């Protein structure tokens, strides 16, 4: 593949999924300067990957895989990166706290991102992909998790989000 074709593929993917990539970076990195770097790193990874993308999976699956892997590399390289907890641990910790009122959208988003950052990488990834409206099969394809494991994680994600942001309503 020549460079022009690689550039064209990248531009198309970035136009379609650019906002989702930025949301991913926001969820992974709290520091504004680091986040800008991460967004750029994700785009560079995506551009490089376009040289070898062979349509064996959908463009969306490929873009999310590349982006999440770049974000995971960033998190792994971060000094003293927090280990993260599993969804069920966050879920149990949340039960004692009970539902809370969220004042504004910004605050809700900040709380959501803090929650994602506290999760272990695979759990955070499932939650992010769920928020991006991918279904269970697509999440399995991106993560490499078995369908059963994805279903369990999505169930926990839904329950956790419902309790934290919708006053106990599940949906």
């Amino acid at each position, binding site marked *: 593949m020549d460079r022009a074709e690689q550039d064209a593929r990248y531009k198309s993917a970035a136009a379609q999924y650019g906002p989702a990539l930025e949301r991913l970076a926001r969820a992974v990195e709290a520091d504004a300067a680091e986040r800008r770097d991460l967004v750029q790193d994700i785009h560079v990874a995506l551009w490089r990957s376009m040289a070898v993308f062979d349509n064996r999976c959908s463009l969306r699956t490929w873009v999310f895989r590349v982006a999440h892997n770049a974000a995971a590399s960033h998190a792994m390289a971060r000094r003293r990166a927090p280990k993260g907890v599993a969804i069920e641990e966050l879920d149990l910790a949340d039960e004692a706290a009970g539902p809370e009122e969220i004042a504004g959208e910004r605050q809700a988003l900040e709380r959501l991102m803090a929650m994602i950052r506290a999760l272990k990488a695979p759990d955070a990834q499932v939650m992010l992909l769920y928020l991006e409206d991918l279904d269970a099969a697509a999440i399995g394809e991106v993560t*490499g998790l078995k369908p059963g494991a994805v279903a369990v994680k999505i169930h926990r994600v839904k329950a956790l989000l419902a309790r934290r942001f919708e006053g106990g309503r599940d949906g």
Partner: protein
Amino acid sequence: MADIKNLWQSQKQEEPVTLENVHARAGTFQRRIRRRNLIEYAAGAVAISVFAWYIYALPGLMVKIGSGFCIAGILFILWQLHRRIGAEILPETSGLGLIDFHRRALARQRDGLRTVWKWYIAPVIPGFLTMTAGFYFDAPEPMRAAVLYDLFTRLVPFLVLVTGYVLFVNARGARKLQKRIDELDDVK
């Protein structure tokens, strides 16, 4: 549940990344890799120059042969570094699912740590031992006991301690990585 999804997806993109940005950053990344490689090769070249000077300047055939072995060992280490750096994240691997990508990255780091003695320490041992023997046999007979004493009370303990510490730290790091790999295998 749709509310929180809508809220999440309604976030505005603040700074769209341009193709020019991407090209520039990719270029910077390549230059950084080249500079890192250059530093490693320069350090290797300095070490090789020192042992080459030993061959030229130090007396005794065994010391010269030992220095030659050390040069061969350093060349082997440089080749291994080159090979291992080349195996770092390639565009192809970034399209793997997160679990496989993570597992592969961790396994590569673990294997690097587990085998560090084979490719980073062992290659210079024959040279070191030959040089040590050379220092002993090249010394005049009455001085040999003193040379031996010096070697076994200073140099050998120092090298054993440093090597032992490096091996211990690497083994501990490899165990931690294996634990993380096991955790990934459990969720898959």
